[in-house]
């Protein structure tokens, strides 16, 4: 029982990271109807940037914020320069571009930083907080950070005019233009946010899995499973899905063995797509013809 509690709580901690990346995937999906397969590699590259800043002697939180901002700007630039030209191209072309980005980021990271794994520091203390036996400080800390992040995003999209405009641009770009929304920049903003979220996720997971170019592969898979489980067009659902997948991963790992962890994620993806493609919370939109 004790083991179960531990696995569930630990699962919530990593689940928070999967939830954040799942949210980034859903944001881009809502705007472009494509899954950004390069999300993980962009996050990994941003984490390497943070590592470089830390190696240069910058304090952790300074490096953290600089990385988030640079990732944001990078995301905006990638959308304007690389994604925009293929905006209206057939799906296969867009997917190819995403996969191309994935490969480029992965290879360039390996080339610049080599493939040897590197340790990445956690900003949270070594000893568990309040002397508890269930969660390390890092797990508790990263849960806190991802919850704050998710809350900020929720408030942004729900209650600010810019958030409403971004949702409008994703939903109906033609009508958005007719009310004066600069749709191109809304998409770029979405990419910037997704890249920033990815950077934060990368910096939270790196202390656990160690920094190397293939670090985010597993995270992306779980995030994708979580986003599908929750509903690829439901941001709230993606978050719930991410947490569920985190818990599931740990329980499977503890009771079935770690070899099956990825398998379970893949099985989950296929099951959701076969049984209920809209996921748990994917909205069924009513529209009159």
């Amino acid at each position, binding site marked *: 029982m004790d083991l179960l509690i531990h696995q569930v709580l630990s699962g919530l901690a990593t689940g928070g990271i999967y939830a954040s990346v799942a949210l980034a995937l859903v944001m881009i999906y809502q705007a472009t109807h494509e899954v950004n397969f390069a999300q993980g590699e962009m996050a990994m590259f941003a984490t390497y940037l943070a590592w470089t800043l830390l190696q240069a002697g910058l304090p952790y939180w300074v490096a953290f914020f600089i990385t988030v901002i640079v990732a944001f700007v990078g995301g905006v630039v990638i959308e304007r320069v690389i994604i925009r030209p293929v905006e209206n191209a057939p799906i296969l072309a867009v997917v190819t571009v995403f996969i191309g980005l994935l490969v480029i980021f992965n290879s360039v990271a390996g080339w610049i930083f080599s493939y040897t794994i590197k340790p990445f520091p956690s900003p949270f203390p070594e000893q568990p907080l309040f002397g508890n036996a269930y969660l390390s400080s890092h797990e508790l800390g990263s849960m806190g950070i991802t919850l704050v992040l998710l809350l900020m995003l929720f408030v942004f999209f729900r209650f600010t005019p810019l958030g409403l405009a971004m949702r*409008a641009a994703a*939903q*109906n770009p*033609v*009508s*958005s233009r*007719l009310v*004066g*929304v600069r749709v191109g920049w809304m998409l770029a903003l979405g990419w910037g946010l997704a890249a920033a979220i990815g950077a934060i996720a990368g910096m939270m997971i790196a202390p656990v899995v160690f920094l190397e170019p293939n670090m985010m592969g597993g995270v992306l898979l779980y995030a994708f499973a979580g986003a599908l489980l929750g509903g690829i067009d439901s941001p709230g659902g993606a978050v719930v899905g991410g947490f569920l997948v985190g818990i599931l991963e740990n329980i499977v790992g503890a009771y079935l063995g770690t070899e099956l962890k990825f398998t379970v994620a893949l099985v989950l993806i296929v099951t959701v797509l076969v049984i209920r493609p809209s996921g748990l919370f994917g909205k069924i*939109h009513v529209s009159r013809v």
Partner: protein
Amino acid sequence: MSDVLLQVRNLHAQYGPTKVLHGLDFDVKAGGITTILGANGAGKTTTLRAVCGMVKTQGEVVLGGERIEGKATENIVRMGVAHVPDGRGTFLNFTTEENLRMGAYTRKDRAEVALDYERMYTYFPRLKERRRQQAGTLSGGEQQMLAVSRALMLRPRLLLLDEPSFGLAPLVVQEMFEIFKAINQRDRISMLLVEQNASLALKLADHAYLLETGRVVISGTSESIRNDESVRRSYLGY
């Protein structure tokens, strides 16, 4: 020449390789209502889209003295042009209220925007009842009212209307056209109205142009066209 708000000269438009408009000339006077009539496929919707920069065009489109052809749609809108498109263009996943809020997206005067919400609700009380309802669940007529209201939230100087009577019950259409007349007279909003229902359009508008396969075949004041029996019989069907 009295104030001309929109001046279009030699407008050509195409969808990909297919040319749809072949050198249109027409005007909308400031504070006036111009209607463009014609059968299906004549190019009426394309004309509105061309004014808004939504299709590839050649020719001159001048709004209040400024050339706007080639500009991006969102920038033309920001110059005070509101377009109620065919198909209504409702944000189906948003509530009624959120749709109106998007209409006012480019405006900075929050107090006036709040007043305008109330004004739309007095024009269309049905919208007030359904303000928090998902717009996609509104009836066709209600979505049409919402589309018009959203355009008015911009406080445009030029309102483009693409077949606003489409799919509406006759009584609702009558109410709506009375509202158009009222806002034209009170707020001096100029209008470019595309309609298949010729008699309705000619009652509201002061000038009319008749399109046939992308060309203007007849133009004049709506009174002269209304009174010209041969035109009515052969082109307008009544």
